[in-house]
């Protein structure tokens, strides 16, 4: 993934709680075998409504999504992260997130900014009052800011996730440095092998 230091841009307020990954990217989009092109499917059911916030001219081109509690719950589909990023979002600010979604985001470089519910409300208020407001998410300093109003909130990321974002590190590459430890562990592992168990498998009857 690409390194992320600072995300700076306009923000969109999505004033809903429990925005699950089925809403972020509905299941008809999951048939694709590619990793790109999911932006068109982002919130596709809601986007049919002309009044939906992402359809409003003043929010087009925003790079930060601000949402209600429990954003990204439900299905493990990483397609939700791909869709948000493909659409142009680089950070999501909310009071809480679905575990798997937050994890998937960290692998792709989508910055997850968890701040208190009233801070999210304040931020939404600022953005609603003036959609051209610039918002800044700083991974280095671990804060979200609206410089124009001197509004500043800190957030936390586990140190490893922060390092990976800042350096654009590939998780698999990092783990592969531990090849020796994995091999040592495997030598004592009692987990069964499936080799030879289902010999007839591998093709349709």
């Amino acid at each position: 993934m690409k390194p992320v230091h600072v995300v700076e841009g306009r923000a969109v307020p999505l004033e809903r709680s429990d925005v699950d990954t089925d809403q972020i990217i509905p299941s008809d989009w999951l048939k694709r075998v590619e990793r790109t092109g999911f932006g068109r499917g982002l919130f596709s059911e809601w986007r049919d409504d002309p009044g939906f916030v992402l359809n409003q001219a003043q929010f087009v081109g925003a790079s930060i999504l601000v949402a209600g509690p429990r954003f990204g719950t439900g299905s493990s589909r990483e397609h939700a992260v791909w869709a948000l990023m493909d659409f142009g979002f680089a950070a999501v600010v909310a009071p809480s997130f679905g575990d798997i979604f937050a994890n998937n985001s960290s692998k792709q470089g989508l910055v997850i900014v968890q701040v208190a519910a009233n801070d999210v409300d304040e931020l939404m208020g600022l953005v609603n009052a003036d959609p051209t407001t610039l918002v800044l998410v700083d991974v280095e300093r671990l804060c979200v800011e609206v410089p124009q109003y001197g509004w500043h909130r800190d957030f936390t990321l586990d140190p490893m996730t922060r390092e990976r974002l800042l350096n654009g590190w590939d998780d698999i590459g990092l783990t592969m440095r531990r090849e020796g430890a994995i091999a040592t562990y495997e030598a004592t592992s009692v987990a069964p092998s499936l080799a030879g168990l289902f010999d007839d498998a591998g093709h349709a009857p």
Partner: protein
Amino acid sequence: MAGRTLYEKIWDEHVVASPEGEPTLLYIDLHLVHEVTSPQAFDGLRLHHRPVRRPDRTLATADHNVPTDPISTPVSDPISRRQLEALEENCAEFGITVFPRGHENQGIVHVIGPELGVTQPGMTIVCGDSHTSTHGAFGALAFGIGTSEVEHVLATQTLPQQRAKTMSVAVENHAPQGVSAKDIVLAIIARLGTGGGAGHVIEYRGEAIKGLTMEGRMTVCNMSIEAGARAGLVAVDDSTIGYLRGRAGVPDGDAFEVAAQRWRTFVSDDDAVFDSAIVLDASTIVPSITWGTNPAQVVALSGVIPSPEQFDDPGERDATARSLAYMGLTPGTEVRSIPLDVVFIGSCTNSRIEDLRVAAAVVEGRRVASRVRALVVPGSHRVKAQAEMEGLDEIFLAAGFEWREPGCSMCLGMNPDHLAPGQRCASTSNRNFEGRQGRGGRTHLVSPAVAAASAIMGRFASPDEVGR
């Protein structure tokens, strides 16, 4: 030293490395793969010229996207067909066992793992699907992962993980007659809320959980994610061992006894301390349905649709009003008076043989209400074959149900089985999100018994109303 919880025992046994300041590297014993969350992971491997580290600890099946039409019918949607072919090609290229559409072992990934005996106590199990928690019924640490992590496990057979917090959910006393595992887990989710389990691994305990069959325990663990928890667990006991005996993936004879002895250690110690604990009284749990668009919005079958005014929190009031509008429901309406268009019996929550037996017993000798489309989608070919041996298919067909080929089907509406806009469905699946079963569709989560009775009555109903 205080004793350890079941979660801690499994965790400790799988630590590959715990470098200072970094997440623990955890070994994965079994990786289950399906067609939807894997193609991009295999592409990643190819891009970096990486092999699959342990094809012998990896097992794939087609489930999410398969049509449930007769196997002889080709997959008509070209994009779906491509995805199913990609799974077979990828597995062939990387040496992974795969059960494609129509194979005797094919089925929903969380149904086939246990039934083939490859899900075993004390294991770490992952799959690119959030309902991987199902396997926790066997005292295995099982959780859903995204596609990047699928690639990571394929390449390294490990995952960097932060240790979760532990939560004990004790369901004490016995559930009344007619209350199923589904009703128990809906009660738990209603109590915890959709985020109540976040950051935790739940261990389900207490008399009511002990009293469940393995299939019932799977139903409970399956829905852990709907309370925000990453995984659910049940301690190993005689039921666990009894279920596993004789299955394809477990050893025979003396070797089984040796394995069973080890498996029996996968229980929390008496003096283990959980980070949090809640207790429910099973004797107060009643048959229930969900009325809204998240799985914590639960109401008794004998109750009425709630009103936004019942909630003090303004956020919750708004969410309730929005759910009611989406679901097309008016506060105060009696649940039992709400008419249905579709009844779906299937999904990794409730599509196993016991679920089908319960449903068949309710519909035997009756007819599905004329305006209702009712379908049964067995969880796997093995479940389907067993049901057919017992004559359950005849019962369903005679009652006017469709009897379809196995897969995820209308649980997520990726294949041609989905709701039309505005259609109302009683579903034995696990998610009632907006549009989950088809754009504009309205999903109510129910137990197999309630689904069956509701199909007959054309509205929400309990089995004892049928044929009155």
